[in-house]
């Protein structure tokens, strides 16, 4: 019984990191109404940036956030500005949601293979970082310390994003644009700038998730693919555009994975996650907290 | 013969009651007009009849049969066709292709469907634009295309949703002529229209809708002089052609 509880808690911790990874995706969707198929690759980039930041500076992984967050923000900002914006600006035939999906899939392929080319296929990890392998004993259960750090990172990031959208001027401008593009631009809000910032934030969140992962996860060019699909599942589960939904959805997935592996092979839990995803797609596409979008 | 009958039709969207207790019957071969201020619920009624969504309550009968929950494609096969207020052409294809799609409703062979489509186009004086890409048409032709497509399905009753909107006065007169010719050929017409001149000239009878309820029904002359109708329209932003 105790082991199940331990699995559940570790699952929640890991799941919150999944949620953190999915946070960016849900934010980008909430604002731009597009599903960014390249999100997993952004996460992968975040992991590599975190990895190199730690290796080159010798900093504690979480201190590397100082480098990772701005770099990722700018990366996302310019990705939106240079690649996605032309499609938004083009006429209707090009601007349908499907075209953006196709383009972001292209970005996915480019990023993944570029990093394969540049960094090589080998698995890397931060062997000597201060968090690796550390366990915390709480009431007879062993909790993974890096995942615990990730848990808090996830909560703080979610809170920060929520407050940003609620309290700051830019944040409110973004929310206004996401509700009604034209009305917002009549108020003097530059919608393209808003989109750039939103994607920047989403990408920065992916960067933070990357930082949470590098202490204990392997880094390799196609690591993003596993997370990409998982993030979609989480976002659909939790509701597109919902921050709380992303965290909750992530935790659900995490618990399924951790508890599931007690009873079956890891890859079967993968199949269960896919199955759950399909069930939600068919029965409740708006997820737990989101709004149904007709598109 | 009563070709279309609506009995106690209600339609609510969430808490909003769009149509309330609507009763109507249309005789075969007549032209019935439906008018009312914007938002009165006219298109909602059309959508209920055409199977886009079912009414929340009430029944609809077509040629004596209960069609309340039937889907649009089945209704089309049975002879009920409609046009859309906001035109929906298959923009990337030619006019002929568009109408051929409609013609396929009663045949499986392409040659025959194309022949019927050409006939319809000639009837509506559109044969010169048959090879034009639908996306490049003017609004007048687009409205006519909507009718042509629906006509190609060989309907017994045709629901026309504001086919005159956006047309110039001469174009409106042409359209009235075309619709009258359609009735001569045996098609019952149920038309929603805002342009008073047109609907007064066209309709045998007119029903008036206001806030989802039918407030009166009668000949064009009766309706035009009905106080309730005048009150419903006064104070509304509303223009006649």
């Amino acid at each position: 019984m105790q082991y199940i509880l331990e699995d559940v808690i570790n699952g929640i911790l890991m799941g919150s990191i999944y949620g953190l990874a999915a946070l960016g995706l849900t934010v980008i969707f909430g604002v731009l109404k597009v599903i960014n198929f390249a999100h997993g690759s952004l996460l992968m980039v975040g992991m590599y940036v975190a990895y190199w930041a730690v290796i080159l500076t010798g900093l504690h992984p979480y201190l590397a956030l100082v480098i990772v967050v701005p770099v990722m923000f700018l990366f996302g900002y310019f990705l939106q500005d240079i690649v996605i914006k032309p499609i938004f600006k083009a006429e209707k035939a090009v601007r349908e949601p499907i075209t953006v999906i196709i383009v972001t899939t292209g970005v996915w392929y480019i990023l993944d293979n570029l990093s394969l080319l540049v960094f090589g296929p080998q698995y890397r990890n931060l062997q000597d970082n201060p968090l690796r392998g550390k366990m915390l004993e709480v009431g007879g259960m062993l909790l993974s310390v890096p995942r615990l750090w990730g848990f808090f990172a996830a909560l703080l990031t979610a809170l920060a994003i929520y407050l940003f959208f609620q309290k700051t001027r830019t944040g409110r401008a973004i929310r206004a644009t996401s509700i009604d593009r034209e009305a917002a631009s009549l108020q003097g809000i530059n919608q393209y700038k808003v989109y750039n910032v939103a994607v920047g934030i989403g990408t920065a969140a992916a960067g933070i998730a990357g930082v949470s992962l590098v202490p204990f996860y392997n880094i390799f060019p196609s690591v993003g693919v596993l997370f990409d699909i998982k993030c979609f599942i989480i976002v659909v589960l939790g509701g597109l555009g919902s921050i709380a939904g992303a965290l909750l959805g992530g935790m659900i997935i995490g618990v399924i994975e951790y508890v599931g592996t007690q009873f079956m092979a890891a890859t079967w839990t993968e199949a269960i996650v896919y199955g759950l995803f399909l069930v939600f797609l068919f029965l409740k596409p708006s997820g737990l907290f989101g709004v149904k979008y007709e598109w | 013969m009563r070709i279309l009958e609506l009995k106690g039709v209600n339609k609510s969207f969430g808490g909003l009651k769009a149509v309330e207790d609507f009763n109507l019957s249309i005789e075969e071969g007549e032209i019935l007009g439906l008018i009312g201020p914007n938002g009165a619920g006219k298109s909602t009624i059309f959508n209920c009849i055409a199977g886009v969504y079912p009414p929340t309550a009430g029944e609809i009968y077509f040629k004596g049969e209960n069609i309340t929950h039937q889907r649009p494609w089945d209704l089309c096969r049975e002879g009920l066709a409609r046009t859309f207020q906001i035109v929906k052409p298959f923009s990337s294809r030619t006019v002929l292709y568009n109408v051929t799609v409609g013609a396929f409703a009663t045949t499986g062979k392409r040659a025959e469907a194309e022949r019927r489509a050409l006939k319809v186009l000639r009837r509506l004086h559109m044969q010169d634009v048959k090879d034009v890409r639908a996306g490049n048409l003017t609004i007048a032709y687009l409205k006519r295309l909507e009718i042509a497509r629906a006509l190609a399905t060989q309907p017994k009753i045709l629901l026309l949703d504001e086919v005159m909107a956006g047309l110039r006065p001469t174009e409106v007169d042409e359209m009235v002529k075309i619709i009258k010719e359609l009735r001569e050929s045996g098609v019952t017409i149920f038309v929603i229209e805002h342009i008073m001149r047109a609907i007064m000239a066209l309709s045998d009878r007119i029903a008036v809708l206001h806030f989802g309820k039918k407030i009166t029904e009668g000949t064009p002359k009766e309706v035009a002089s009905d106080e309730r109708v005048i009150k419903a329209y006064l104070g509304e932003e509303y223009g006649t052609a």
Partner: protein
Amino acid sequence: MGRNTIRIGPLVLAGVIALGLPLAVRSVTYLHILVLLYLYAYLTTSWNLVGGFAGVLPLGHSAFVGIGAYTSTVLSLQYGISPWIGMMIGGILAAIVGVIIGLPTFKMRGAYFALATIAFAEGIRVMVENIDNLGPIRLNGPRGLQIPPLNTGLLNFMFATKEPYYYIILFMLAGVLLLTYAISRSKLGHYLVAGGEEPEAAMALGVNVARAKLIAMAMSSFLTAFAGTFWAQFTLYIHPKSVMSLDISFEIAFIALIGGRGSIAGPVLGALLLRPVTDFSRIYFGGKLPGLHLIIFGVVLILVMIYQPRGLQEPLTRAYRSVTKKLFGHTEAA
């Protein structure tokens, strides 16, 4: 030069060249490349039936390739059934799965549909990777199945040289192109186009859009499975990553999109342009620059989507028309 000659001329020319190529090309490597080229042209044309004509974006077609490959292989290895029969059975199985997938997903639009197809395809792949034995059937999980090259001959769909495979896939490609052409002119074709462009209007004109899409899906998955059987018989080794991976699904979709989905020539054109990129970058850059061709794909895809969303077949057709107009005074259309 008559209109029909201009229309049919290049096709006849291409056909003659294709038939005669194996006589001129003696290198086994190049023949292999050509076979793969035709295979992908076949796959993208089959995909086009639902991804182009029906107007949706299926990103999980590798599942059908896998179903075809595994069905015919298992049937021939364990029960001695000829791969040709296995191919048919695989096709039928794939069609059934395709309809099952399509029934709930065609109601969705855009990204939801694409995601659902990815989830289905990956789910099936994960299951096959995990199952060693399904009752009496041996699937061998991630290790896959190997076909011993024992009995050659047409009946066994096994040949010692590449030439017979070349002609078989060429024949399949020609068949599927003819089918696509016939469908585009048929009632189903019109209904699919209408349902894809303006579903509400189509429904009002008597089109059961959902049913038309399902029919297209069944055809598409049926034909795609054939490619799986061909692949199994050609390479004599199949495993989940080789026949069911997401990479294959995406490559098929990318090629069709770049070439121009919804047109007949588009997918073939896409394959003609992009497959050589894959093959030559593998030959010349091989180990030194892995994944280069995928980067090129990605860039081309993005550029095409921004500047020529209907695919490269549009500007190419226009160029062809202006050339024939200059040479012969008219094009094949008017």
